[in-house]
C-alpha cells in the first residue's frame, strides 16, 4: 500500500491549498496516471487533473511527481515511491486553477511572442516546400515538443523572473530560426537576443532533465545563440560574453577572468561597468582577484592550431 500525498486546491471552497493523503495499492505495471485515475474513480471524484492520451503523446498530464515535473502517464508508479509515498503537485511557475490543473495562459502567451509559424521567402509553390534530410535534421528534435509545460514548470529562471520567455517558447523559436524555408532568421535572432530571451537562460539544464521528448530546450537555445553570433547580432551582454570567452581561450588556452566582465559589459556601457565595481573592490581587498598577467597554458600553440583549423 502506498500513500499518494496530493496537493489539493479549490478556491471556491478554501483560499489556501492543502495536502490530502490517499492510500492505494499500486497494481504491477501501473503508471502514476493510472493511479490518479483509480483514486479519482474509487475514492474522490472531485480530484481534478488534465489527461487524455495516456501514451506520452498529448502532453496533458504533466504534474510534479516528488517535486519535479513529468508526464504522469510516462512514469511507472512503483518506481516513484519514496518512503512509501508519492507526492503529486501542480506544475510550477503557473497559477493553480484547481488541484493539479494550472493556468497555461502565460505559457501560450510566450509561445505566441516568438512568432511560431513559418514566414517563407516566397508565395506558396504549386506543390510542397521541400527540405533536404540535413535541413530537416536542424528542426527535427524541437519538432517533437508536445507543449506539456514540464520545462516551463521547473525552469530556474522563471521561478524568479516572469519576463523570461522560458524554455518551451525558445525551443519553439529554434523550430523556425533553424528552418531553411524561413525568411526572417535575422529578425528572429535579434528579437530573441533582447532582455528575457536566449541570453537570460542560466544553463541549469533543468529543462533537458524534465523534457519527455528529444526537444531538450537548453540545447535548442544554444543553437539559436550560435545563429545569433554567426549573424552578427553582437550588441548585447550575452553575445559579447561569448565572444570575449572564445577569444580568451583562443589566445591563452584558458579564461582571462579580468578581461571577461569588462568586455562582456562593453566599454561604453557605463551602467553595466559600474555594476562590476562593488564585487571587484570586495575581491581586490581580499586579494582574491585573478593574476594581472594572464598566463597561457603549456603548449598553447596546439590549442591555437585547433582554432585555426576550425576557422575560429
Amino acid at each position, binding site marked *: 500500500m502506498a500513500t499518494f500525498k496530493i496537493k489539493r486546491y479549490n478556491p471556491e471552497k478554501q483560499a489556501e491549498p492543502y495536502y490530502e493523503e490517499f492510500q492505494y495499492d499500486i497494481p504491477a505495471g501501473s503508471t502514476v496516471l493510472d493511479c490518479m485515475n483509480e483514486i479519482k474513480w474509487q475514492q474522490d471524484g472531485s480530484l481534478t487533473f488534465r489527461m487524455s492520451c495516456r501514451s506520452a503523446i498529448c502532453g496533458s498530464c504533466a504534474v510534479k511527481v*516528488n*517535486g519535479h515535473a513529468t508526464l504522469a502517464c510516462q512514469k511507472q508508479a512503483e518506481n516513484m515511491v*519514496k518512503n512509501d509515498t508519492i507526492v503529486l503537485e501542480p506544475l510550477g511557475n503557473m497559477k493553480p486553477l484547481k488541484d493539479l490543473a494550472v493556468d497555461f495562459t502565460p505559457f501560450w502567451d510566450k509561445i505566441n511572442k516568438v512568432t511560431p509559424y513559418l514566414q517563407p521567402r516566397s508565395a506558396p509553390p504549386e506543390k510542397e516546400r521541400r527540405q533536404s534530410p540535413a535541413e530537416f535534421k536542424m528542426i527535427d528534435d524541437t519538432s517533437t515538443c508536445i507543449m506539456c509545460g514540464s520545462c516551463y514548470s521547473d525552469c*530556474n*529562471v522563471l*521561478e*524568479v*523572473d516572469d519576463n*523570461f520567455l522560458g524554455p518551451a517558447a525558445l525551443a519553439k523559436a529554434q523550430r523556425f530560426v533553424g528552418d531553411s524555408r524561413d525568411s526572417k532568421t535575422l529578425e528572429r535572432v535579434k528579437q530573441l537576443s533582447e*532582455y528575457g530571451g536566449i*541570453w*537570460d*537562460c*542560466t*544553463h*541549469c*539544464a*533543468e529543462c*533537458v*532533465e524534465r523534457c519527455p521528448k528529444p526537444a531538450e530546450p537548453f540545447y535548442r537555445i*544554444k543553437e539559436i*545563440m*550560435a545563429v545569433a*553570433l554567426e549573424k552578427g547580432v553582437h550588441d*548585447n*551582454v*550575452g553575445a559579447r*560574453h*561569448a*565572444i570575449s*570567452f*572564445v577569444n*580568451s*581561450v583562443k589566445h591563452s*588556452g*584558458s*579564461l582571462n*577572468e579580468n578581461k571577461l*566582465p569588462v568586455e*562582456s*559589459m562593453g566599454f561604453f556601457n557605463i551602467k553595466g561597468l559600474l*555594476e562590476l565595481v*562593488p*564585487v571587484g573592490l*570586495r*575581491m581586490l581587498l*581580499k*586579494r*582574491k582577484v585573478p*593574476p594581472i598577467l594572464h598566463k597561457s*597554458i*603549456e*603548449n598553447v600553440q*596546439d*590549442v591555437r*592550431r*585547433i582554432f585555426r*583549423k*576550425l576557422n*575560429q
Partner: protein
Amino acid sequence: MKFALFTGCVAKGATRELMVSTKRAAEGLGIEFIEMKSAACCGAGVISEQSPLLADALNARTVAIAEAQGLDLVTICSTCQGNLKKSECNIDSDPEYKEQINHILSEGGHQYLGGKSKIKHFANILATDEGMALLKEKIKRPLKGLKVAAFYGCYVLRPSGLSDFDDPDDPHGMEDIFAALGATPVYYPSRVKCCGFPIIMMNKTASQDMSGNALLDAIESGADCVVTGCPLCHLSLDSYQPEIEKLKKKGYSIPILHLSQLVALALGYTPKELDMDKHIVSTLKIEERLARG
C-alpha cells in the same frame, strides 16, 4: 589513488583558495594529483554557444592527454565536469564525429580513444566505498557539531544521463562525505538548484534572486555553512553575497566553503592553510562552531 587533475580556469584565477585546498586535501588523503598543465579550458558551455565542434575538439584533446597518461581525470568544478562529460557523450555516440575530432587532434599528436580515462568530479571519487574508507582512515579533526548544507552545482547532476550521482534529483554523495567527516548534513530543496552565476552579467536581479533563494533555504534549514563543488557557484554565493537583496533584507549571511576546504579542515589543516581568510563572507562562524563541538 592517482589521477590527472583538470584544474579548470577559475581555480587558478578568482578562487585560488580552491587550488590551494585541493592540494592540501590530496596531500592529507595520500591521493596523487598530476596537474594537466597543457589542458585547455572546458568551454564552460560558452564556447559551444559559438561552436559545439570547437568545444568538443578542445575537450577531446584534454581527455586524450589523460588517456595518454593512463590516468582517470578528476575535476574540481561542476561546470568543467559537466562540459567534459557532454563532449565525451557527443563524441562517443557518433563514430563519424569521433573520426572528425581525431582528424582535428592528430596534427597536435593527440588521439581521443574514448572510455579509457574516466571523468570524475572530486566529490565522486570520495563518495565511493574506497573514498569513504580513505576519509575515515585519514580524518584527524572530526567536524562534530557543524551543520553543513551541500550546493551541488547543476552540471554534476543534469542531464542525469551524464551524472555520476545515483539520483540527480535527490543526490546524497556530498552529504555522505559530510557525514564521513563527522559533520551533520543538512538536506534542503535548493541544494540541487542553479546558483544563477551564468547570467550574473546578463540579468543580475534574476541571478541574485536565484542565489538568494538558495541561501535563504539553507539558512532557514539550520545550516552553519554551505559547501559547493563548483567554483562558479562559490563566486555567486560568496563573492556576490553582500549584495544579494533577499539576504540583506533579513540581515543574514552564511559562509561558503569549497568541498576541498571542508575535507582538508577535517584532515587537520588550519583555515589559514586553506586560504579561508580570502573569502568575502567571513568563515569565523565555522571555526567558532567547531570549537564548541
